């Protein structure tokens, strides 16, 4: 399940829904990761652009990997502006046993950071500034650049 919405996420509501969806699926472990906008560098919030077609296919690959281990992944992300102390990202893994859940959440969140086609902007002094320094070039980037 990949859930995208404008603005910040209602964390307790989404966690409750996901928990209820799997309440009788016989998963012994449920692990969730929530990303919240921190106050730092004087920002008022963050803003996000998402390219959905590639995000969907990236997520489908992870769902397939999870399925092979008997697990399920869910993810929610914000589009547009999310202000301080509000949350923009939730990922969750349900699995029969704990090791798979603990390993998947780590690998999933790290690959999400490195590969998911989402761009982050700082909201500061009324401007939307691309968070270039915190961004990661996707694997295989640079092929259109000049030969070194």
């Amino acid at each position, binding site marked *: 399940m990949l859930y995208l919405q404008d603005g910040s996420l209602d964390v307790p509501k989404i966690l409750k829904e996901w928990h209820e969806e799997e309440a009788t699926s016989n998963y012994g472990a449920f692990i969730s990761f929530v990303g919240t906008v921190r106050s730092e560098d004087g920002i008022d919030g963050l803003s996000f652009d998402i390219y959905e077609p590639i995000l969907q296919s990236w997520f489908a690959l992870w769902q397939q990997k999870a399925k092979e281990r008997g697990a399920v992944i869910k993810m929610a992300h914000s589009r547009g502006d999310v202000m301080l102390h509000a949350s923009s990202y939730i990922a969750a893994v349900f699995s029969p046993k704990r090791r798979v859940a603990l390993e998947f959440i780590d690998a999933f969140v790290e690959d999400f950071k490195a590969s998911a086609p989402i761009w982050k902007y700082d909201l500061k002094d009324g401007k939307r500034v691309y968070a270039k320094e915190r*961004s990661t070039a996707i694997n295989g980037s640079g092929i259109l650049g000049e030969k070194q």
Partner: protein
Amino acid sequence: MVRVEFLGPIQKDALALEITNLNELATILQKDEALKEWLATCAVAVNDTIVTSLEYELKDGDKVSLLPPVCGG
């Protein structure tokens, strides 16, 4: 005609180009001074699949997307 889209923070309208592979696209885009800094760090998708070879063949109706460095979460 191949459509070329610039995603996320790249402030540039889409292009429609008569090209047959990514090598030709690289040659055209490298002439755009405003794009130079992006090309070194952008990933390239053809019809929403990431490709990593300049020899990739393009056909009429294909969509090429440039994806600058990402930071979700």
